């Protein structure tokens, strides 16, 4: 018997995840805020960290968006190959969930036509990344992504000769040049390998990890720690006011690439690192 999941259920799950992600900051991020506060000594940097902790508490208690930029709706969806979707178009169901969540949750709609700049009015279309996986379940991850930090993200095609040191330099330089713009303390997602577009998706996926969770490969874990240490020596600090916490964590994901290429993508995430998931 093939397991069936209805689009009605998918709509409801997407709607709730969108609202939940915008109101409730993860405990991992809150813990990282407290640790960052302990590392700062200037009035301005400490003030920022205290405000961020208080802001997350207010948002949670009053069911208010953490940030006014409720992001574009980035949705990762893993579809078990042994299940069957009934009741209509999956993509439309995801968009309907986004529509209902952003309207019902009083979230800001930030999606617009790229040239006329006319707002689409309901924050659709969602940015959907679909993947077919083994099993008969569906995993939905909702990661609203703000514009300020996304604007500071970059992809580059390095020469293989640049090697891992070239990758590290590229990432640190990007964070340095971004300065105060992406709302530090940030989280840095890095995708290395694949093709041009794959590296960017890897970087975005890396941001779905919880703060403090290292890449299971010990060599990659070490690179993550080294890049984080280098970033936190830049001195940018909370909101760029100067300090020791420029990034809260660095996540690296890799994939094989062409023998002639070394694609590297840096996806910068502001401190409002929002992502919620559900399995149905």
């Amino acid at each position: 018997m093939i397991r069936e999941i209805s689009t009605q259920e998918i709509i409801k799950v997407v709607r709730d995840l969108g609202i939940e992600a915008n109101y409730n900051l993860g405990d991992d991020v809150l813990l990282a805020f407290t640790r960052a506060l302990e590392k700062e000594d200037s009035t301005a940097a400490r003030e920022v960290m205290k405000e961020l902790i208080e802001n997350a508490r207010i948002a949670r208690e009053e069911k208010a968006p953490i940030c006014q930029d409720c992001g574009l709706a980035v949705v990762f969806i893993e579809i078990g190959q042994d299940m069957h979707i009934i009741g209509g178009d999956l993509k439309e169901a995801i968009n309907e969930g986004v529509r209902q969540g952003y309207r019902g949750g009083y979230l800001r709609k930030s999606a617009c036509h790229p040239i006329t700049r006319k707002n689409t009015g309901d924050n659709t279309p969602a940015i959907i990344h679909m993947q077919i996986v083994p099993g008969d379940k569906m995993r939905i991850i909702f990661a609203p992504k703000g514009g300020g930090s996304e604007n500071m993200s970059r992809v580059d095609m390095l020469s293989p000769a640049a090697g891992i040191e070239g990758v590290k330099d590229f990432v640190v330089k990007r964070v340095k040049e971004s300065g105060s713009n992406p709302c530090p303390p940030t989280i840095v997602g890095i995708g290395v390998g694949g093709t041009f577009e794959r590296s960017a998706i890897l970087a975005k996926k890396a941001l779905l990890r919880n703060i403090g969770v290292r890449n299971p490969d010990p060599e990659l874990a070490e690179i993550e720690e080294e890049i984080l240490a280098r970033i936190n020596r830049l001195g940018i600090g909370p909101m760029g006011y100067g300090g020791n916490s420029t990034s809260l964590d660095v996540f690296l994901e890799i994939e094989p690439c062409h023998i002639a290429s070394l694609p590297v993508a840096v996806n910068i995430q502001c401190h409002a690192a929002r992502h919620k998931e559900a399995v149905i």
Partner: protein
Amino acid sequence: MAKQIRLTTPLSTEDVENLNIGDKVLLNGVLLTGRDAAHKRLFELIREGKELPVDIKGQVIYYVGPTPAKPGKPIGSAGPTTSYRMDPYSPKLIELGLKGMIGKGNRSQTVIEAMKRFKAVYFGATGGAGALLAKRIKKAEIVAYPDLGPEAIRILEAEDFPVIVINDTKGNDLYQEGIKRYAKG
């Protein structure tokens, strides 16, 4: 040494000249709001020599596009947006008497020069602290360009709205000073 200062808008030249980078300021009174789209329209009116829909003399503009207000609340979450997008328009507004801007992120050298020459300051509010900052806004009213939605020009009534001085009237920049103080190696 950074101080904590309470100020009420409109601000005088003397008010802003007393501020130094790193000072914490609690702003009270009226704040205007505007983002890229509203700035563009104001700029066009100035170029055509027409009157602006709001008087900007002595005023402070907050770069914000809030979330929709829930029933019974004056405004939704309301943190600052990145300021560099307003850089092409700010020097002219400063020349016309604007005394303060609230946002986040670096300003261009031209804006910093205008602040020095015409005596204005740039304040930073904590980006992403939209829920907290909304609680310091007691009233909000759209006064121009309602068609811009979250980007419309609003008049806000602020109560102890917390900001930090990033650029003062002497040409100092907290972002540069902060990095100088904390960068290692």
